[in-house]
């Protein structure tokens, strides 16, 4: 049983208090959405969870150990996808995927075509992303979800730019992951429902939660 928790978190950006006294605790199978208006600190909260932003007050714990104490052990367990796709326009889809795969540390060979088929981009192996639409780029960025073995997923606006079919694919992936004991935290503009899985949610308003 693993546990991800946040204690008494406070975040100040540019002298504005984004949130204060935030507590959160998630166990295996937990699914959490963070929603709120632009500038309410959704992305900041997600980045704090992933350990990108260092905090001054409060702590982020993974299995009751502060994530800064065993950083690489923690990083071995997480997958973070920001609102940017982190793909290179001048590398082909396959080349991009190879790099993503190598960074996960997995030794097995990847089957490009299978993954691309699952994400709905069959036959685009040799295409350069600069020729692709925003939705396709987002899908390519989200192929990380197929290649990772991490238990904790932090997804910043995963459904952005995706069409209905794409949203469904990602939703199913997330549900599958959580059903198998993974933990997912994602952000959205608007509160959304996910069918067939219990979903916690927090809403960020300015200055209070």
């Amino acid at each position, binding site marked *: 049983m693993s546990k991800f928790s946040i204690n008494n978190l406070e975040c100040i*950006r*540019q002298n504005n208090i984004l949130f204060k006294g935030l507590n959160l605790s998630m166990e295996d199978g937990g699914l959490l959405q963070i929603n709120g208006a632009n500038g309410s600190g959704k992305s900041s909260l997600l980045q704090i969870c992933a350990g990108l932003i*260092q905090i*001054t007050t409060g702590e982020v714990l993974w299995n009751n150990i502060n994530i800064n104490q065993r950083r690489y052990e923690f990083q071995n367990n997480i997958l973070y996808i920001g609102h940017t796709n982190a793909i290179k326009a001048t590398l082909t889809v396959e080349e991009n995927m190879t790099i993503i795969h190598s960074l996960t540390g997995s030794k097995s060979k990847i089957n490009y075509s299978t993954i691309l088929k699952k994400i709905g981009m069959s036959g685009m192996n040799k295409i350069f992303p600069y020729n692709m639409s925003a939705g396709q780029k987002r899908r390519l960025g989200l192929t990380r979800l197929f290649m990772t073995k991490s238990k904790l997923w932090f997804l910043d606006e995963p459904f952005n730019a995706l069409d209905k079919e794409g949203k469904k694919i990602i939703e199913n992936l997330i549900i599958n992951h959580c059903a198998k004991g993974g933990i997912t935290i994602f952000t959205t503009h608007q509160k959304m429902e996910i069918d067939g899985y219990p979903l916690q949610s927090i809403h960020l308003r300015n200055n209070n939660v």
Partner: protein
Amino acid sequence: MYKWIHQFGSPKYFYDISLHLSKWVTIVCIVCFIGGLYGGLVLAPADYQQGDSFRIIYVHVPAAWMSLFIYVILATSGAISLIWHIKITDIIARVSAPIGASFTFLALSTGAIWGKPMWGTYWVWDARLTSELILLFLYLGYIALQSAFDDKRIAARAGAILALIGIINIPIIHYSVEWWSTLHQGPTITKLDKPSIHLTMLIPLILMVIAFKTFYIAIALIKTRSEILKYECNSSWVKKILGN
């Protein structure tokens, strides 16, 4: 150690201590300054080689020492804030940098003024002056980097890295410049370095060094206090102070 640092790093504690400290530091500074000036400008006999022009030493040398000293402060407080994330050291580094830059400028300009009667020109590519000039560039870079950030915490930590790299680099810079200047000029200018100095000349120099050091501390304390007030403007103790 950790606990002590955190207690010392607590803004309120530092604020209270610094108020007491400020008083004493200012008194020491004024006494040493007057004593040093009187000793240096009136009591000390003229140098047998340089005549009265050597009296510039009483501002040049303390300024040069302080310019290096403050850079060391930048680097050490940078290291502390990188390791322990302490606000006070962030603030100390930020307020010290302009003071350090002004001392570096002072050391350079008094050095150049001194150079005119000594070497016949204002600027000589002497190893010490050249490294001092590069030190000024380092200070300016540090200040520019800090002011480019909106978030002061990030600015402090980025500055800390720069200061640490700078402090590793300073001995290398100094050595390389010395290496270069001996090759180009030969070791001609040693008058500035180690004058076998008479006691009546030395005591005012020591007084002036103390005066400059306490001056820096006094100014840094004033600036640190106002920065603390800005940081902590929402806490109750600050409101209490401002209420009075």
